[in-house]
């Protein structure tokens, strides 16, 4: 998995390329936690595969930033990966995070 990081309009953008799984989730988690910006955007266009460890990490990091009053945002999600995330309830959890601090 390759991670490209740049700044855009005051927020951090993390572009992912490749496959995110059990073996490399920690690497990406560290990159998210290293960012000081209020909004961190994760661009998933280049993501070819994500396993449950990857999904769990993205949600835990969304919660982590939310608790700090910050935002982790996911953009350009490939169709098949969007379907996988929808099935698990990924977007329902993000919605709940916005409306309910217990999510």
């Amino acid at each position, binding site marked *: 998995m390759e991670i490209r990081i740049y700044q855009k309009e005051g927020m951090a953008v993390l572009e992912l390329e490749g496959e995110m799984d059990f073996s490399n989730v920690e690497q990406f988690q560290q990159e998210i936690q290293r960012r000081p910006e209020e909004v961190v955007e994760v661009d998933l266009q280049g993501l*070819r595969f994500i396993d*449950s460890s990857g999904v769990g990490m993205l949600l835990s990091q969304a919660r982590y930033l939310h608790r700090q009053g910050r935002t982790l945002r996911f953009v350009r999600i490939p169709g*098949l990966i969007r379907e996988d995330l929808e099935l*698990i*309830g990924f977007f329902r959890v993000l919605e*709940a995070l916005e409306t309910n601090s217990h999510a």
Partner: protein
Amino acid sequence: MLEVAKGNGQILRAYGLECNGSSLPAGQVGGDFFEFIPWNERTVFTVIGDVMGKGFQAARLMETIRQILRECIGINPHPLEVVRQLNKLGGYELQKYGSFATLCLLCYDGIARRLTCVNAGHHPPLLLSHGQVKAAECRGVALGLLEDYLGSGIEEFFLAAGDTVVLYTDGVVEACSPGGHRYGLERLKEVVRLQHGVDVDKIKKNILFDLDTFTHGVSQKDDVTLVVLKVTEKAGDKDGD
């Protein structure tokens, strides 16, 4: 009732059903699981699930979820209540380790031939009836992600002799060919459609064979778990049920 557990496989013949499942781990021990849980003289539960991650922790959490599932069935066996309670009790255990689990719970009443399905973030089961395949529509958020279970509720089907139900984990539909193409739900549905009149063991083998053909035997990232249930007769129609 005949119940056989062998290696990663399990067979159950009872309740007017033939059930056959197996789980093939990819690399180190994963979090996939399935189980047939005979409940009373007319009801059997079937569960398939996938706990996040791999290795010792995923395997341990998977055992915890299975144990809590049985306790929840004992408290109130209504399938929706089972999943709600499991999300509370099991969800707490999962959250402690930053984990979650997908799960699909089926409850089959062999007298009424009624199949009740509740889903928590898992691929919905496929139903084969008279050569037609459809996917169940029940959906829900995976266990451990929200404090209270959120889903579309129960979905019921009344089955006839010969009807077949196929449960699977993401390792089946997300398996990739050497060219990087996914096996996918449509191909699985097509293979299942061709299994009309075939016995459960052969159905399972045919699906796994097609999966192996598609992937050219290339090792995959995720466990492959497959469970097939087929209605043979009404429970109690024959001695031994």
